[in-house]
């Protein structure tokens, strides 16, 4: 009787053991991603704000920069694909395959970082700093480096995080769910780039 009564009371919003149908690890990651979304949005809005308020915004990205940024997008998108493959393999308990897919994901992330650092160095060489640049609006450098810098920090952190999870999963210390939660973080990093790429690069290309 008591069982029946508790069953009738169970609903999606009824609280209980697991109101969202996910574990606390996964829910914790979603909460972190919510707050991180707002941090990135604040930076994107700040960038848009100073650009809107400037009479002549610099457009330093030539064909080569756009091409490299597109390759960087390809790196992140492909690493997201290998990440879902890793999550699927982890759920089937195929440890070796999971680790291989995760290493491929890390490879995509590292390639992204190398290309991005190379691009930063080119811009720094042209005289762009957070406080000045040759084209006049000093806030260009400030907004560009904070936005892409925060994103690159996330990629770097993600690469380390994935490496730890891949190593631990290979050793049998982590569960399939840990792989899935690290995947959520990695897809988020990819997702943020889907806004930085058009707003920062494509909208500032030399026509």
């Amino acid at each position: 009787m008591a069982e029946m009564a508790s069953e009738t009371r169970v609903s999606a919003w009824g609280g209980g053991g697991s109101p969202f149908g996910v574990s606390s690890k996964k829910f914790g990651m979603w909460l972190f991603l919510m707050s991180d979304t707002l941090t990135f949005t604040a930076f994107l809005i700040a960038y848009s704000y100073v650009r809107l308020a400037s009479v002549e915004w610099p457009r330093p990205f030539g064909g080569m920069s756009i091409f490299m940024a597109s390759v960087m997008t390809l790196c992140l998108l492909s690493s997201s694909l290998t990440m879902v493959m890793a999550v699927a393999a982890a759920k089937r308990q195929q440890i070796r395959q999971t680790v291989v897919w995760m290493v491929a994901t890390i490879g995509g992330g590292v390639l992204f970082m190398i290309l991005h650092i190379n691009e930063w160095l080119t811009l720094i060489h042209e005289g762009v700093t957070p406080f000045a640049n040759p084209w006049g609006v000093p806030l260009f450098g400030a907004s560009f480096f904070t936005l892409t810098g925060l994103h690159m920090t996330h990629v770097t952190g993600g690469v380390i995080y994935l490496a730890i999870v891949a190593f631990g999963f290979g050793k049998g210390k982590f569960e399939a769910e840990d792989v899935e939660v690290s995947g959520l973080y990695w897809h988020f990093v990819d997702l943020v780039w889907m806004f930085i790429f058009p707003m920062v690069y494509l909208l500032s290309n030399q026509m």
Partner: protein
Amino acid sequence: MSSDHDNHNRLYLTVWSGLLILTVVEVVLAYQTLSVALMLGLLLMLSFGKTGLILAYFMHLRYERLSLVLTIIPAVAFCIAMMFIVFPDGLRLLDFRQ
């Protein structure tokens, strides 16, 4: 089990191809002569499409319980919308500078 596995892989590959195609459309669009406002609108529309694909399939939100989706998405969307409050001030500054 095996066909289920193949189906999932095919789904992921389809989503990945879709994301690549949307990216190519964005790059081609960037080289058209349009006003900045129209360009921004079109690019953001495509980016939100890509976001939807990533959230739904790569981050599995489509397969989660509705209570989780409704907890995450509307609150974040509302907070993001509130940040747009700074843009009228950006236009005011632009007026001063011109």
